[in-house]
């Protein structure tokens, strides 16, 4: 075990606690967008894909990395867009709410 592994562990510990505090404040109304938003954030592996595939010398590592980039991008792009689409639908009373009526 090296020192930066300890740092990573500390980061993990703090992030988990912080995650729980933050997410438990999200109201029930927003739980579905929260799920798709979480999908988007889990696309952060794209960063890992760019690095891991670049570090290796082997061509297979590149194929793997490229595939990982694609998959992670699906999450990032799809996740943020669909979350945004959902969230934009949430409106307060008395905003212009009657145009879209069928």
């Amino acid at each position, binding site marked *: 075990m*090296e020192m930066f592994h300890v740092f*990573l562990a500390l*980061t993990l510990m703090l992030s988990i606690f912080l*995650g*729980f505090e*933050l*997410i*438990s*404040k*999200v109201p*029930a*109304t*927003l*739980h579905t967008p*929260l*799920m*798709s*938003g*979480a*999908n*988007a*954030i*889990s696309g*952060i*592996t*794209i*960063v*890992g*894909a*760019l*690095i891991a*595939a*670049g570090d*290796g010398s*082997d061509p*297979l*590592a*590149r194929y*793997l990395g*490229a595939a*990982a*980039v*694609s*998959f*992670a*991008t699906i*999450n990032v*792009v*799809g*996740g*943020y867009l*669909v979350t*945004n689409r*959902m969230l934009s*639908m*949430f409106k307060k*009373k008395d905003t212009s709410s*009657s145009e*879209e009526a*069928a």
Partner: protein
Amino acid sequence: MTLELINLFYVASAALFIFGLKQLSSPATAVRGNMLSSIAMLIAIVATLTGNNILPWEWIIISIAIGAVIGGLAAQKVAMTSMPEMVALFNGSGGIASLLVAWAALYNVDNSTFTDITVVLSILIGGVTFTGSIIAWGKLSEVMPSGAWVFGLQRVVNGAILFGIIAVAVIFCMDPAADSQYLYMLIALALLFGVMVVAPVGGADMPVVISLLNSYSGLAACAAGFAINNNILIVAGSMVGAAGIILTNIMCKAMNRSLANVLFSGFGAVKQATKVEGEVKPITADDAYLILEAAQSVTFVPGYGMAVAQAQHVVRELGELLEKNGAEVSYAIHPVAGRMPGHMNVLLAEANVPYDQLVEMEDINPRIEGIDVAVVIGANDVVNPAARNDENSPIYGMPIINVDHARTVFVLKRSMASGFSGVDNPLFFGDNTRMLFGDAKDSIATVVAEFKG
């Protein structure tokens, strides 16, 4: 950029992710929160791209383009009623991405045992998440048979797979190599295990599984972060992990079941509720109109049936007509109405119902006695009084919306069929209950037509 500078940008990115999540705590700021979160992601990606050892540029552009097109199309095309399936698929793609990252990380020369262990973890979690999510998606979208897939030696077989995973993982860690046959075995076993774990869960319990897999996709990112010593993966992954676990927990609590019970046992088959008998009093849409017309306060209680009927738009229309008619209108939302947390809220928001008209279970129950008419739209289990009264009921103890305490209850559904839990509903036989049979959208549309004259 130097590695130090890149990591400083990661710190900024992490802070933005956190701000973004903070703003998700209110519908008024949530859009901005999502925006901030996406900027955080952009910063992390751009900072990474300035590093030296990355994929060749052409590769990056092509792979990102592919992913962006798929993701973008999916996000635009998906119907709000199919969000559960979509989340399932996204979980899967997050999982496989982490698996691939960890695999690729093996090609780095200077791996320590610690790194190898995290690589194995990442492959396992990622693999299980991937196939598990696909099965969950299949069951939800009914591409696959949605029943629980049970067979005799299930426990033995699963135990064997688990044992195999541990054994192969240990052997691999002792002599790790990117082209080790044990690696391939490990990947295959992880993928198989994902199938085996989700298959025995009935399609109806999929939402809980999906939320759990949501959490796993975050944990997989965390593990990948350890494998390649990357902080931002750990921070962002933990947030996703926490989100999934909290939602899983909320669902289990609202169904009054333990997670183990959801994962390891079929539902409803075992327990037997007290048989319900009595007289059902149907009502026509015309008569329903007359009663609604006279009502001072109306609360709508939507459930899964509203999603099936796609009735949210006519419901909103009826709500507006009732308000114009002088009634006080609210929408009472049960935490597990529908098929995923917040399902009803999204549908109603889609139909332009302002979110301040939505009332949570805890807030409506204390004042439900004062409500003239509670209109139950395709909800069933979440308004089943057996959960309150019948100790033999499998859903006994599940908190419900006490519509039976309102002055009058209309129940809109197509038949006397039971809901998701397969349990009979004594509400339908209540003195103050009127059944309005038929597709919810049609029924409400008829009432709306009457109102309009």
